[in-house]
């Protein structure tokens, strides 16, 4: 035999589910807007890394190139330039190195990072918990 339900309990689960749903919708909304900001800042870092790499690639030691044909960058100057360029956009240099691309050409690679702000719910809760890492590369092409 089925036990009869108390009148007061009716609808308790559905009301609870409704509140859970409301909280979930607010959370999803906050993540959607915050995610948009994170993506925008990721794009900024991406462009900043490429600008920093282009700047670093301009510090080729011309005298060495003209005397030996070897393409070398002045690592100290390259780091200074990359930091100056990336720092203006709020990024920090994580790493800078020269490597070969798929076609065997010399490229300078710059890795940057930034602490991203994620304004949740219109800036009511500004959370800074995400570090964005991006990488940019530029070919080493000495002027002749």
């Amino acid at each position: 035999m089925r036990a009869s339900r108390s009148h007061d309990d009716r609808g308790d689960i559905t009301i609870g589910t409704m509140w859970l749903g409301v909280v979930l919708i607010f959370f999803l909304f906050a993540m959607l807007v915050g995610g948009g900001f994170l993506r925008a800042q990721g794009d900024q870092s991406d462009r900043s890394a490429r600008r920093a790499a282009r700047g670093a690639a301009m510090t080729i030691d011309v005298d060495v190139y003209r005397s030996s044909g070897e393409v070398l960058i002045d690592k100290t100057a390259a780091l200074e330039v990359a930091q100056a360029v990336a720092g203006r956009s709020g990024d920090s240099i994580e790493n800078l190195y020269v490597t070969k691309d798929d076609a065997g050409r010399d490229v300078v690679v710059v890795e940057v990072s930034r602490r991203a702000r994620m304004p949740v719910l219109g800036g009511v809760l500004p959370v800074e918990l995400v570090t964005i890492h991006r990488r940019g590369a530029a070919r080493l092409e000495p002027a002749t």
Partner: protein
Amino acid sequence: MRDDRGSATVPLLLLGIVLILLAPFAVAASDVPLGLTEVDAAAGGAARVAAAERSPDEARAAAQRAASELLRRSRCKEGTSVVDVDVSAFEGERTPNGSRRPGMVSVRVECTIPAGRRVPVPGMTDSLVRVEVAEAVDPFRASNAR
């Protein structure tokens, strides 16, 4: 059981109303990050154009022109865009060990992204977006460019 009929429909209806009320906020709020991306791209484009010029004056003028053109097609509210071009470090220098240190051009752009541009949202205020970028100036551009 007859008493339970419709008990799930009411919360679902309320959830639907909350979702419908929040949707315009989501659409309107997405304009700010999209605007930020556009302003950053405009500043970067202007800085790159400026870095290809031969003199600081030409660089400043070119950056202003490029930024204005790029911002014209952006989400920025008309008349709120401010473009500041810094060419004080435009000329590069030679380092003691023989390499050339490139010069630098900086572009700072700020503008207002209007709230509720696509969907009017009561109580939502305009957002000020400010971006600054720098571009290195190729010390050999003059011999290559013209």
